């Protein structure tokens, strides 16, 4: 837990400690960055090819203007993808699981789930690459009406499942202890 001492999220209770921070697997962001790599390749290739096709002024200002314009688009796109990846996060704390879902720049959903509400945890590793790289979805079935809670394309889903199950059994034991104490409290007072 020392590892997350510098981490703090909005809505964190006092005394609540972060146990694990889960983001999507790196392969997910890599898939999106393939487009960026292709765009960068196009940027450098066009520097070689375009002067042979079109005639530019002596200083080539038009060509460099177009290139720098394209470079701005790529730079902004790199960060939009990074924000979508980095801010899409599942935080496992000592009390609950907090899901912060970031979709591009203008959509953000935050939901939370108490460990005692968890009924079942299942894993879905679907396909050749997820099996090789060990990533997949972790579904959490809850007792409430909200239904399922999903960890999408997260690394090491098996270890994550055992961590959640472990936290759930601890939370249930704690809840049972508190209930027993509440039941016995009137008798002990007399």
């Amino acid at each position: 837990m020392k590892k997350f001492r510098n981490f703090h999220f909005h809505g964190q209770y006092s005394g609540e400690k972060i146990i694990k921070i889960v983001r999507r697997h790196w392969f997910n962001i890599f898939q999106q960055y393939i487009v960026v790599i292709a765009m960068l390749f196009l940027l450098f290739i066009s520097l070689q090819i375009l002067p042979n096709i079109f005639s530019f002024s002596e200083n080539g200002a038009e060509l460099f203007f177009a290139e720098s314009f394209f470079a701005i688009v790529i730079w902004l796109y790199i960060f939009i993808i990074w924000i979508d990846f980095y801010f899409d996060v599942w935080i496992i704390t000592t009390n609950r699981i907090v899901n912060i879902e970031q979709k591009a720049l203008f959509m953000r959903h935050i939901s939370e789930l108490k460990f005692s509400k968890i009924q079942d945890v299942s894993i879905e590793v679907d396909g050749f690459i997820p099996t090789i790289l060990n990533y997949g979805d972790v579904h959490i079935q809850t007792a409430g009406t909200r239904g399922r809670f999903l960890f999408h394309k997260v690394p090491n889903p098996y270890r994550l499942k055992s961590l959640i199950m472990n936290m759930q059994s601890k939370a249930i034991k704690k809840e049972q202890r508190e209930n027993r104490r509440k039941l016995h409290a009137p008798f002990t007072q007399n």
Partner: protein
Amino acid sequence: MYVLINLLYLVILFSFCLVSVFIVYHIVKYSINKKASRIMLFVFIPTIIFLIILNISLFTSIDVEDLFRF
């Protein structure tokens, strides 16, 4: 024509600046790790400022009248 192109360029430049401001806002406001956010701001801000200034200087050096002369 010259005015129209200038106007169009200003609109695009403004949208670039707006997206940049939104990116910085997200990094500052929503980051759960302040150290990582500082590094990303340090990478993003100087580069985008450099690229935009470079783009403006290259745009001003283009002779737009000459570009559309056939």
